[in-house]
């Protein structure tokens, strides 16, 4: 019974808390078999609905299922396993906005945490979010840097767009 109550309390925090889209920049990928290997590896990931590879732009565009539990870290690991370097990524994700240790974060169902950063041209966006959206479900798009500061640190995402 206690577990059920705990689940009912916690579940809303993760309701529809997922990565939705990832446009991952890839360095070093030069040829069709390279693209094919990356595409096949990404398609095998749970929750991946579609993958589009561009050799000329050096990107992998990944569309994920609404109920997926996929991690950006795993997507980047697959690219690394193919012998290429995953650089910054444009991502779209949704989840409940929370404040933790002074940072606005979104934790997705996979357990990955994204710390929202102020986009250079968007003054006061985070402050407005803190006031109006804390505790609410939001969908944002932004740019995630190539690496974390430490393995346990959240992914820093520079928010570029807020969806209603």
């Amino acid at each position, binding site marked *: 019974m206690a577990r059920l109550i705990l689940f009912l309390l916690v579940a809303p925090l993760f309701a529809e808390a997922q990565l939705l889209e990832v446009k991952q*920049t*890839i*360095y*070093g*990928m*030069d*040829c*069709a*078999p*390279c*693209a*094919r*290997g990356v*595409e096949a*590896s990404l398609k095998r990931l749970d929750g991946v609905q579609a993958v589009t*590879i*561009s*050799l*000329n*732009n*050096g990107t992998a565009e990944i569309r994920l299922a609404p109920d997926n539990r996929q991690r950006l870290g795993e997507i980047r690991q697959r690219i*690394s*396993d*193919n*012998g*290429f*370097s995953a650089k910054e990524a444009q991502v779209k994700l949704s989840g409940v906005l929370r404040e933790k240790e002074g940072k606005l974060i979104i934790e997705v169902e996979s357990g990955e945490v994204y710390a929202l950063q102020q986009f250079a041209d968007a003054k006061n966006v985070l402050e407005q979010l803190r006031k109006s959206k804390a505790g609410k479900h939001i969908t944002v798009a932004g740019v995630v840097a190539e690496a974390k500061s430490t393995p346990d640190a959240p992914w820093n995402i520079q928010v570029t767009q807020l969806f209603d």
Partner: protein
Amino acid sequence: MKRLLPILSLLFVSHLALSSGHGPVFGLATPTLGKGHASFDVAIMSNRQSGGSALMLKYLWGYGITENLQIALSTHSPIETVPLPTRTRGSLMMQANGDIEGLVLWRFHRDDYDIGNRFETTAIVSGSIPTEKKRGGVAVGNALHAALVTGYASRVTYLWIGGGYQHYFKKGNDQLGGLWYGSLVFGWRPPLFREDYPKPDWRLFIESLAEFPGRNTVNGIKDPNSGGSRLLVGPTVLGLYGDWGISGGVLVPIHQKLNGNQPSEKARLMLTLTYWI
């Protein structure tokens, strides 16, 4: 029909194959398989000499332990042989005709410095066992081989330079001479084929291969009719589309200095068909 048979069998086998063959045909190159990826290449190779022609099928199985560490096994099926086979070395499928070879490739340096661009260096070590007792009248033993290749890949051009050495161990009083070699490969993707994946991806290469076989030892005596040097140059082409790949080309000697009385090489041809699962 006898000459068609290997080509037909090659076409058949290629249906079952997956491959790592996305580099040059004869020269050394740096790419290795992705982690957990397996590969199989099948090729038909002809070596034309002043004294006849050798023809064989070659097979290469590969597996990527990590994205930078690959193992491979190369075998062959001779179709036509010559009394004094040319001493050859080069790409993973270019070991001596008659050797079964196990290879380890370690891409120990990689710099993915931009979109579509890579600079990298790979070390290759291998060991081979002969499938025949004598080769050109010389009892043939096991061999060890090491090579190093560096270069860059991009969406427009490719350049690889590498070289290595193969040492044959003594067999009784006989020993095949060691073989130094080096290769230089320049690749170019024509503008028509720079369209994005999954459009057809074709590349043209100019490949050069220099080989310096040492003198053989027969009954403890250096054979005067062995060893020398050879420089070969030629065009090759690589095409990739969907699950299929095809590569092939020809090398012709522009320099040959062979000791004593040895058949001179006229041309070296190879065609590889690949299929990716």
